[in-house]
């Protein structure tokens, strides 16, 4: 009988993985980040306005508008799901926030400065929570397909947004209006959009949750092999409900931010944003088959889309090319990933 060591060295059927084949460098996110850096370099050569403080601040604000929702979407995609209802959730949450703020003032309920704003934002976030809970329950407990379920809520929630304001939209109003605009659309030192700071906090929280908690392990496990998760005692249904709730909350948060910047919550707010958000998540490396994705990738995807849009405007190219270019980048990103995994696998 061979000794343990002989035995072990006898079956080296998998080579040691090299540094570029593991960790962040092995992910699609890293390739897209490299592409983004090249793109930023080219843009800075094409337009001297691109790398100005003002323009960078604008880009940062614009991608922050969808990036928190993209973090939520990424969580859902990692579990192998999809959430098409985020654009509608953004609109309804912004609308409810504006309506509650106005309603409290009209009812004379202004106990202390900021009270109407705080209650209104909580109502808006509660709206996102409720939509997410509905999606999660239908998908995890009733076993409905995520695509169909959230396609339904996309329509239901958008419809409710129109019904709530007779299609006219709503406006943040009352004594806390300026405060509301400051916390949603303000800039720190007249430069750093507060929305970007919120994004950083959310991204760090998501990173820690995904990579340093058991919950994050379970999110990845469900996307990799849901049945294995169940067999090993992971509470699959609960985790699934949680990711849809987080996606709803994240969308609500971004919807409220956007309404602060617009100064209004039109009923068509964030119409079709679900597609941009899914595109950003996928470009950033989230795999629609489940099991792969992360916070950094989600943000990289959002930045890339915004840099392209911004660059096209500065270069005086018809901005309608943006959609076409973003589409090309989606295909290119998954193609590069495919070629890479075919080589190493």
């Amino acid at each position, binding site marked *: 009988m061979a000794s*343990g060591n002989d*035995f*072990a*060295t*006898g*079956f*080296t*059927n*998998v080579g040691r*993985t090299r540094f570029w084949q*593991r960790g962040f460098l092995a992910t699609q996110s890293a390739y897209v980040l490299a592409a983004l850096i090249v793109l930023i370099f080219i843009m800075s050569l094409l337009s001297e306005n691109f790398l100005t403080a003002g323009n960078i601040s604008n880009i940062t604000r614009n991608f922050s508008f969808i990036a928190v929702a993209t973090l939520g979407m990424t969580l859902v995609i990692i579990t192998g799901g999809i959430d098409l209802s985020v654009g509608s959730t953004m609109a309804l949450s912004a609308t409810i926030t504006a309506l509650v703020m106005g309603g409290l003032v009209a009812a004379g309920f202004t106990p202390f400065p900021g009270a109407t704003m705080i209650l209104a934002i909580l109502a808006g976030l509660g709206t996102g929570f409720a939509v997410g809970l509905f999606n999660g329950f239908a998908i995890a407990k009733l076993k409905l397909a995520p695509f169909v379920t959230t396609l339904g809520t996309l329509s239901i929630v958008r419809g409710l947004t129109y019904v709530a304001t007779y299609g006219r939209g709503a406006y943040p109003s009352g004594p806390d209006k300026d405060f509301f605009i400051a916390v949603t659309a303000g800039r720190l030192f007249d430069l750093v959009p507060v929305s970007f700071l919120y994004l950083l906090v959310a991204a760090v929280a998501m990173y*820690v949750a995904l*990579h*340093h*908690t*058991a919950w994050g*392990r*379970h999110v*990845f*496990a469900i*996307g*990799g*092999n849901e*049945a*294995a*998760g*169940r*067999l*090993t*005692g*992971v509470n699959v249904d609960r985790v699934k409900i949680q990711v849809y709730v987080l996606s709803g909350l994240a969308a609500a948060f971004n919807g409220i931010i956007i309404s602060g910047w617009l100064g209004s919550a039109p009923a068509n707010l964030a119409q079709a944003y679900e597609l941009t958000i899914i595109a950003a998540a996928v470009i950033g490396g989230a795999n629609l088959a489940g*099991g*792969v994705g992360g916070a950094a990738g989600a943000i990289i995807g959002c930045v890339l889309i915004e840099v392209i849009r911004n660059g096209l405007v500065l270069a005086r190219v018809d901005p309608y090319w943006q959609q076409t270019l973003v589409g090309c980048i989606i295909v290119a990103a998954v193609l590069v990933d495919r070629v890479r995994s075919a080589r190493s*696998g």
Partner: protein
Amino acid sequence: MALLELKSISKHFGAIQALNSVSFSIAPGEVVGLMGDNGAGKSTLVKIISGIYHPSSGELRYEDKAISIPNPGAARALGIETVHQDLALANNLTATANIFLGRELKHKFGPLRLLRHNAMRARANELFNELKSETRADDLVKDMSGGQRQAVAIARTRLADAKLILMDEPTAAISVRQVAEVLGLIHRLRDAGIAVMLISHRMPDVFTACDRVVVMRRGSKVADKPIADSSPEEVTALITGAKEAA
């Protein structure tokens, strides 16, 4: 004294009768082989004991107490560990993450519970050494060979102090040498007083590793006897139905 006792366990899925009043028991440190053709109900039996399915009727007794096993966590709490037929691994996770899935080691960090990556990796490496498997704790399962996957699934059963380990076809997808390692492990488990239920299609596995053989056919137990009193020919006849019962 029996460790685990099944009394008239039946299980049906709609019109399909997967188990039909099956009774049997396993003593501490005993290695029982469970054989039968595809669809005989072996995996269903395993899943009932590991808390994934609930019996339609019948009684389970463990260490002389009537019990129910509502979920996989409850089975583990009793000291019952399982290597499932499809191994139940998440391909996108590392060996370590799979071994500790559902029972991760955590630091308490204020309100947070953060993963103890190093402690889990060290324990995983220890387990692979014990299993004499060259499986690296940090490798993703999707990059692994059949034998390495098997090692991960078996390592998972060695995390806690198990009293009963169920192995559903652990040797189906691995090389001859790795089969010898798994059978060697089963011997060591028995020496440590751990009971093993081994499901296999391979007659030599059962006849080298087991003390007793149970044969199932179409949901019913048709034989239950010491290995010494049986033969591969008899078991084959029982599996196919050429021999009704023994």
